[in-house]
Each structure stands twice: as C-alpha cells, then as structure tokens.
C-alpha cells in the first residue's frame, strides 16, 4: 500500500493506492504530477529513523509521500 498526504487549507488529504492496482496508481501519479507542476514539493518520509528525502518523480513503491505547497522566503 502507498499513501500520499497532500497539505491543504483544510488539513491534509490522503490518497491511498494498492501498488498492484494500476488504476489506483495512475490516479495517484496524475495527482502527484499535477501538484508538483504547480510548485508543490514532494517528500518521501520513512519510518522513525529513516531519512526524509525530496523526490521529483512519483514512485508507487516509496511508501509514504507528503506533498507540501510552495515555500517562500519572507
């Protein structure tokens, strides 16, 4: 199972997929692409102790992904 949390105004929205289900993976991937094109940053977060990494391309096998809106300096 894969999970993607998309941060938004109402808290995060979760998109879950079964890696064996092509339709679910396709839906998740298209959302990932649409949001990163808008400027969202994507991070792969692991279990405790695992390193957080920024990702540019969707991979259904990454486990948990968090998409955050664009970050700016103030």
């Amino acid at each position, binding site marked *: 199972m894969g999970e993607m*949390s998309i*941060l*938004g*105004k*109402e*808290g*995060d929205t979760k998109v879950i997929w079964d890696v064996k289900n092509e339709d679910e993976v396709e839906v998740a991937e298209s959302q990932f692409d649409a949001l990163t094109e808008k*400027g969202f*940053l994507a*991070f792969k*977060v692991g279990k*405790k*102790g695992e*390193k*957080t*990494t*920024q990702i540019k391309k969707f991979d259904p096998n990454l486990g948990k992904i*968090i998409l*955050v*809106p*664009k*970050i*700016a*300096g*103030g």
Partner: protein
Amino acid sequence: MTFSTCDGNGTSYSNYVWETWSTASTASTTSSATSYSPNIWKRWVSCDPYNATDSTTAVWVTWIEPIQLSGKTKEQIDEDEKTYEKRRLEAEKKQKEIEEKQKRIEEERKQAEIKSKELLLDLIGKEQTDLYEKTGRLLVKGNKHDYLIKKIGGVIKVEKDKLSDLCIHLENRYAFPETDNVISLMLLAKADEEEFNRIANNHGTRHRPTDFLIEDQLKQCAVAQ
C-alpha cells in the same frame, strides 16, 4: 411665563406672552434675541396710557405649519425614516451573516489544525507532538545546523556560537493550518538543508547565549529526529 411692563403713566400687563423664548441675550437687552415658538402671543393685553384701553386675546394661539427640515416635507421625512430602518435591518442581517461565516471559518480552521497535528503525530511521535503542543516550537536537527521552527511563524537557525532569525514559510501561509507550515519547513530542512537556507531570508544574526538550547533545556521544544 408672565411678562409685565410699566411706563410712566399706565401699566401694560400680559399673561402668556411668548410662552417659549429662546434667547442669546447680551447684558440686559434682548436685542440679539432669537425666538421660536409654536405658541406665540397667546394672549396680549395692552393699555394705552393716554387714550382708551385696547385689549385683544388669542393672537396667534397656535402656529401651524408643516414641519420642514432641510427643505423636506413630513411625508418625505417619513419615507426617509422607512428607508433608514430598512437599511438598518439589512445591515444588521449582513452583520449576522458575516459573524456566522467567521464562526464557520474559525471552526474549519480548528478542524484543519487538528488534522495537521495528527499528521505531525505520525511523523514525530506522541511525546514530541505533546511537547510541540505545549511549547509551540519544533527543533529540527539538520546536517549542518539546527532549526527551531515556531508554530506562530519564524525560524531560528542555531549554529555553534550564533543564532539567526530566518523568515521562511508556505506561500499564502495564513490560508493553511499553522502546523502544516511547521511540517513543511521541517521536511525541507531535513531533506534539503541547502535549499532551505537558500529560500529563507535572514533577518539578523546575534551571539548565541551559552544557555540557549543546552541539553537540559531541550524540553523547551519538540525535537524532530
């Protein structure tokens, strides 16, 4: 009111003369007086000291005239009052709608913040989330430096001997739950510290006090490992 006067030969006497008299007099004269009364000269009794006596009553007992303010008739004034009342009720209704909308938005923000803290809980665990809730601060240990991210906004970059105030946040951050901002900064600081520092604006660097975030004070903030 009674008004009476007396000359050398006879006496004039009148009751109810100028029932209402508004005056702005100077000294003992009434030369600069202004008067207004619906009941002017209710009764006038006068006495001619040389000839016969004239007497008359009921002179201008009542002065009837449509009330006019700013050139408007009573009907126009009534109409204005109706319009005013209608607008007042409309404004009151609108105010209530705004208040209800604000309440709804406030409730939605609360719910969003709850969801956001649940995500943080997933990422840093219960103990650190509780500490974050208590202190409103989250310490991220980067590869080069540490970053103290404040829930209310702003980041302190903690170096060995200095502290820097950084300004970095989600674009349009006030539209998002406060904790979403913290989570986003935490993820970027952990994943790409260089990019984090490139985006952030440094608003000033100062000497790091010796007791700033030493081990026994780490309970003053949550720590994202």
